[in-house]
């Protein structure tokens, strides 16, 4: 297409209108940048009030991941409507800005350099980008003001941004329409190709005489588009509005924790000045940034099993309350622009009790669904645990069930009170090695407290031992030398108890020459694999589903007996979300003859918790619905006869739910199904 027509008559407009506006913008650009720096400084000073975190590492990896997350809209697109809406606004804005910048700078270096075609394409890109943003904004308006999902709350800032942005886009098309109308007595037809939407606007304005068009053009260009656009940018750069998520989100993703998923940070008791978070200033700097980065999208709330089952906890509300508290606490810093000695500034309200209630704090099952769904990687579970740590380690009153669990762990080395079973009772008659410094094996089978001490789970333990024997694996157990891995203690906040147990276990494991560990408990798996390394306990740790899958591939196991049933597999949070082990258990089930597999609607990353994590296997669930029963209902909808699990807590929770609901479903561990089939 020829571009000559496009340029016909443009020189006057460009010289008299466009160029002065662009020049003014470029002159004022440093002001915008200064405002942005000021806005950033305000945030930075706020975050610096927190405790320092670990030093920044792997900057390139972080940068790559942040860019991929932002540009690819990875997590946002997991939900169709809000994902598409955000995608249109994000990429539309990017195209719009790209087109604007190209045109602005092409003017500064004369119209023909870069070539005109770039200018023309920039115009087209801006038009399309603007249309995408308008479409996305329309979707946002429908969702926020008409559909009104419960997870959204609307503040004046939200309405302002939507309206302001929409008017700016509209005025952009309008002004360009004037420019087209004023370009010449006859509008060249290729305007339609390079500026299709503005061209339509221009059609409304063709009846004006030449002088009027020029006068209006100037008036509109400066008064209804350029000036509000500049002030919009100033608002974006300076205020702590929702708009700042544009850069805060990317920054938060960049600084996200690169620890293994679910692994909690270690407290160094020798040097720690505070234990956990008892006040807002006790959080780490990145955790304060998290609060700032939360965009109130509510995805966490929509995926939180505690919230969905009617408990007090809403992750979004908790983060927003913490953020409001942070702002309240830091108000002197923001009001006076002076460096105040903030740590000495006492928070106006207490964190635990007034900002975060006891119920909220203990409702969390640490399933990680909130973190998995958060588009900006806000780390929620760490904050909950930090607050629990403070409650536990400073001797505050705890829930009776938590107190009892911790007491059991201290006295008996396991969280199960009143069990009649012993650590090695299940091995009788099975001829299983008991490992010691003088008796070693290639593999250690880490049984875990639930696998050894809870009757229903002992069946799983025996089944797995039989499977390993059938596969010809050289393995042994620690028996009475094994103490709890410490996961329940750590998840309820008793870091000291965790470290004591972990160190004892590490010492035992090292003394027995253990290199490779297999366990069927994802909670033990998480601790042994991802957390013991913090205390210098490094072992090769595998979940039983990984190894059974491998043995099946290697033909060490051959399931021959058919199981005539349909099974729906439930992803354990600690195995799936935290360790991304989704396929091995599914592959195992597919290998069993006769067994049909069906998926629940919430599976893999989006799986729904059984309600047993975070110490909840030992807590009463008195408020709202039982999470395990909700999950069982989801399993029932698949018409499967068996709910397959790969976690002793899940099995325990579902057994209780099946009894409570008198459900015909049976809960079975993957190892049990394999043992039946070989």
């Amino acid at each position, binding site marked *: 297409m020829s571009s000559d027509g496009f340029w016909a008559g443009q020189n006057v407009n460009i010289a008299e209108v466009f160029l002065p506006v662009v020049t003014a913008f470029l002159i004022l650009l440093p002001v915008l940048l200064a405002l942005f720096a000021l806005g950033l400084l305000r945030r930075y000073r706020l975050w610096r009030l927190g405790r320092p975190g670990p030093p920044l590492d792997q900057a390139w990896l972080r940068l790559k991941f942040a860019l991929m997350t932002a540009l690819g809209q990875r997590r946002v697109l997991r939900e169709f409507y809000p994902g598409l809406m955000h995608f249109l606004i994000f990429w539309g804005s990017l195209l719009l800005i790209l087109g604007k910048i190209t045109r602005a700078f092409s003017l500064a270096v004369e119209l023909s350099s870069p070539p005109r075609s770039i200018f023309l394409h920039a115009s087209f890109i801006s038009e399309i980008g603007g249309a995408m943003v308008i479409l996305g904004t329309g979707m946002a308006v429908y969702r926020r003001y008409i559909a009104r999902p419960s997870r959204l709350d609307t503040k004046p800032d939200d309405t302002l941004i939507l309206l302001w942005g929409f*008017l700016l886009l509209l005025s952009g098309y309008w002004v360009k329409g004037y420019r087209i109308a004023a370009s010449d007595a006859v509008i060249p037809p290729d305007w339609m190709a390079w500026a299709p939407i503005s061209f339509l606007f221009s059609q409304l304005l063709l*009846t004006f005489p030449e002088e009027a068009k020029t006068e209006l053009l100037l008036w509109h260009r400066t008064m209804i588009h350029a000036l509000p656009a500049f*002030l*919009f940018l100033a608002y974006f750069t300076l205020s*702590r509005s929702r708009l700042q998520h544009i850069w805060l989100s990317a920054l938060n993703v960049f600084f996200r924790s690169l620890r293994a998923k679910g692994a909690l940070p270690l407290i160094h008791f020798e040097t720690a000045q505070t234990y956990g978070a008892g006040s807002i200033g006790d959080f780490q700097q990145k955790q304060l940034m998290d609060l700032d980065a939360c965009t109130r999208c509510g995805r966490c709330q929509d995926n939180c099993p505690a919230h969905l089952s009617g408990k007090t906890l809403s992750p979004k509300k908790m983060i927003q309350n913490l953020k409001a508290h942070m702002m309240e606490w830091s108000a002197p810093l923001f009001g006076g622009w002076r460096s105040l000695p903030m740590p000495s500034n006492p928070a106006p309200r207490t964190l635990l009790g007034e900002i975060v209630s006891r119920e909220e704090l203990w409702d969390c099952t640490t399933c990680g669904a909130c973190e998995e769904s958060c588009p900006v990687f806000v780390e929620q579970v760490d904050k909950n645990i930090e607050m629990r740590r403070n409650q536990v380690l400073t001797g505050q009153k705890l829930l009776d069930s938590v107190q009892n669990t911790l007491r059991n762990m201290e006295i008996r080395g396991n969280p199960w009170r009143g069990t009649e079973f012993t650590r090695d009772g299940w091995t009788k008659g099975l001829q299983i090695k008991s490992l010691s410094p003088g008796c070693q094996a290639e593999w250690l089978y880490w049984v875990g407290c639930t696998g050894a001490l809870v009757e229903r789970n002992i069946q799983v333990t025996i089944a797995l031992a039989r499977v390993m024997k059938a596969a010809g694996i050289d393995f042994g157990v620690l028996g009475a030398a094994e103490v709890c891995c410490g996961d329940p203690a750590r998840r309820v906040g008793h870091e000291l108890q965790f470290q004591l147990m972990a160190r004892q276990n590490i010492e035992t494991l090292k003394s027995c020459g253990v290199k490779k560990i297999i366990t069927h408990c994802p909670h033990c798996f998480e601790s042994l694999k991802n957390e013991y390394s913090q205390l210098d306990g490094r072992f090769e740790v595998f979940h039983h589903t990984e190894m059974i899958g491998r043995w099946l591939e290697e033909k060490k196991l051959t399931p021959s007996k058919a199981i005539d049933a349909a099974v729906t597999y439930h992803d354990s949070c600690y195995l799936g979300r935290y360790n991304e082990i989704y396929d091995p258990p599914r592959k195992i089930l597919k290998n069993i003859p006769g067994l049909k597999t069906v998926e629940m609607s919430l599976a893999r990353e989006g799986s729904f918790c059984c309600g047993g994590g975070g110490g909840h296997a030992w807590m009463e669930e008195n408020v709202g619905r039982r999470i395990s029963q909700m999950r069982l209902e989801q399993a029932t909808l698949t018409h499967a006869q068996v709910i397959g699990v790969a976690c002793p807590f899940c099995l325990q929770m579902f057994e209780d739910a099946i009894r409570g609901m008198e459900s015909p479903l049976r809960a079975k561990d993957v190892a049990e199904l394999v043992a039946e089939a070989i």
Partner: protein
Amino acid sequence: MKNMSVIIEVFFLTALVACLLGGMWLILFDLGLNSKYRSAVMMALAVVGCAAVAFFIAHLISFYPTA
């Protein structure tokens, strides 16, 4: 045609002015202005907004071309 155009533009400009002043309102308190000044600031911004809209109406009526 002219009346209709003027009405549309005034409506548009009013919304835009409301956004600008709303943004100013939010940013002032975000920057730490004491909330005891809320009503005074609201009054001042309302006066500015009304003046701006009155100016737009006058300007458009005077200068908007006739088709």
